[in-house]
């Protein structure tokens, strides 16, 4: 079967021919969706996922082109290959959506997430938290006599790992931004 001649990176980009559509393995994909920055556009995207029963693992959105009024929404989702194809096609139907990129199949990409951790503790635990933060290249952005607030950037896995280590050391609060991602090169 010859591949669909669809402009790469357009909302019609497809990977029909790359993977077995009948496979029932659950895959994790990172999608980048370029949208008009207009009222309600996020509600449309989220409504699509809830209305059709798709998963959202994380979602971030911010304006990326002030003059062109466009925003970039980065969505991490999971599903079978057929479901992932449907998600992309359904996103492509939303009128203010310009482009849908499946970063997971379009080539290598970098994924980063930022998180803030508040760790409360005294004595050895406090010292250990600071030492591990150093290992993870986390910065101290606030400190009191009884707590540190760390800022850490990295892959979601790295942040998960840091959270596991901080838990016994007095992890009190945590805030994560969700994933931002770009194709390499």
């Amino acid at each position: 079967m010859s591949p669909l001649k669809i402009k790469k990176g357009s909302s019609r980009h497809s990977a029909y021919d790359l993977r077995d559509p009948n496979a029932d393995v659950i895959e994790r994909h990172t999608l980048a969706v370029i949208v008009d920055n207009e009222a309600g556009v996020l509600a449309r995207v989220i409504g699509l996922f809830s209305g059709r029963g798709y998963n959202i693992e994380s979602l971030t959105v911010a304006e990326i082109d002030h003059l062109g009024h466009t925003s970039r929404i980065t969505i991490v989702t999971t599903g079978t290959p057929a479901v992932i194809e449907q998600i992309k096609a359904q996103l492509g139907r939303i009128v203010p959506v310009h482009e849908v990129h499946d970063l997971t199949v379009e080539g290598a990409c970098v994924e980063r997430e930022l998180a803030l951790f508040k760790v409360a503790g005294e004595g050895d635990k406090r010292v250990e938290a600071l030492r591990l933060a150093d290992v993870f290249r986390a910065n101290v952005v606030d400190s009191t006599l009884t707590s540190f607030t760390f800022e850490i950037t990295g892959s979601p896995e790295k942040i998960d790992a840091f959270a596991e280590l901080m838990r016994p050391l007095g992890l009190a609060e945590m805030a994560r931004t969700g994933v931002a991602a770009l194709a390499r090169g």
Partner: protein
Amino acid sequence: MTQPRTGAQMIVQALKDQGVDVVFGYPGGAVLPIYDEIFLQNEIRHILVRHEQAAVHAAEGYARSTGKVGVALVTSGPGATNAVTGLTDALMDSIPIVVLSGQVPTFMIGNDAFQEADTVGITRPCTKHNWLVKDTASLSSTIHEAFHVARSGRPGPVLVDIPKDVQFASGSYTPKQKARTSHYQPKLKGDTAMIEQLADAIATAKRPIFYTGGGVINSGPAASQLLRELVEQTGFPITSTLMGLGAYPASGKNWLGMLGMHGLYEANLAMHGCDLMINVGARFDDRITGRVQDFSPKSKKAHIDIDPSSINKVIHVDMPIIGDVAHVLEDLLRIWKSKGRKTNAEAVAKWWDQINEWKKVDCLQYSNSETTIKPQYALERLEALTKGRDRYITTEVGQHQMWAAQYLGFDEPHRWMTSGGLGTMGYGQPAAMGVQIAHKDSLVINIAGEASWLMNMQEMGTMVQYHLPVKQFILNNERLGMVRQWQELLHGERYSQSWSEALPDFVKLAEAFGAKGIQCSDPKDLDDAIMEMLDYDGPVIFDCLVEKHENCLPMIPSGEPHNKMLLPNSSTKDAIAAPGAVLV
């Protein structure tokens, strides 16, 4: 620079620029400035419906029967919420309509103001797109964009919500030609390599079939013409969904009839046994596929559809072609002819022999009665007595709808208006109203069940007011027939709440509205009664008292594949197995 206009003036001007000649609507506080402008002009006709749901269905009927965009105008709050069923109906059936709704003034939005509803929030999932216009400067361009989105690509309903202060404020009007071009420009031409591959498949197919749908109608008259030529060129059999009836003529020699749950035996068996399925503008709906795992197991499948999300949504296809039906068929025919291709005529002839065997089953036979009007008989007579007339048919939802699809023939597109995807009882009567407005001198008949018909019966007032001579042909079985049938098949004949009790006297009801009423219960009187209905110059309610417990067959029980059909003489008791019972 043109002189400033108010928002309300711009709305009317934008509608005129878009070629709108009729608006179906209902006034209220939040749209009064627009109604004032409508009062002050004569180009656009306003049809005052009796319920906003009817305004939207009327706009749908207008759109489906003309190929143009239908327009409805409703007030804020309850006006907008009443429009929701119509919007959802149009979304499911890909009907292009624009609904304009009034909204409380911008400075009161969010305050639970009188008749405030979050209309864009409520209608987001049931429109193709919607807009809340917050300033008059963007009003006219938004309305032009709304028409563009409604009619482009896969058509659908859109809504523009307009706060009252935006209707009063002044600004400069953006004419249609100057409105900024939208980035929304769906692709019309299909991929040539894939079309060539389909041409190759057509040349070698032994057991081919065309499976066509509403997309052919959506694509316009040229698409139907090209489809007919392609069928002629290849000699392949053709079936259609409920939504595509008329694209290929029912009198055409390659026509197998409708397919699907209540489709014809030969059409369903040909779909099951084919080796090449060419889907043209249909969406593998569950009324068609039955059990997905067993759907047409041995075929290669091509799918022509303008919406990429229709491709591989339900059934995986081998040859996806994203594009407009007319564009793709034109390319396909050109490639086919330029290569001077021939089909495998010998194999296709054998395939036809097989199909003709299936036809002998005569799946639409029914046992007629001397004393009771069978609904199938009523439709056969209606068909015979209206044949050759300039005729448009709408339907309500239920058994009568399926019988109409089985027993009436459509030789042209845009002649058949029915609620397929949502299955909205109450659709047919207002839709017929919209059709009659668009085709003043044509014969418009709404085939109805008594229960569906009651859901929007208030529209008789509209028909009488505007002298719309629509014929309401009610197959009155005093039952919610389709529900009763499923209870027979699935729930041990426990007919829970599926009786139409305390029905009105339809003849008196017609007279109360100022229309004509006719009742018929004897098969011997039927022809004369139908002729009386057809000859009457005005709206008629025809109360056709029919057999009460007739089942609509053939039928693929839910959860079963195509080759497991219930035929007219098979037992229907508990015919739906447990796994199928959860399906609708």
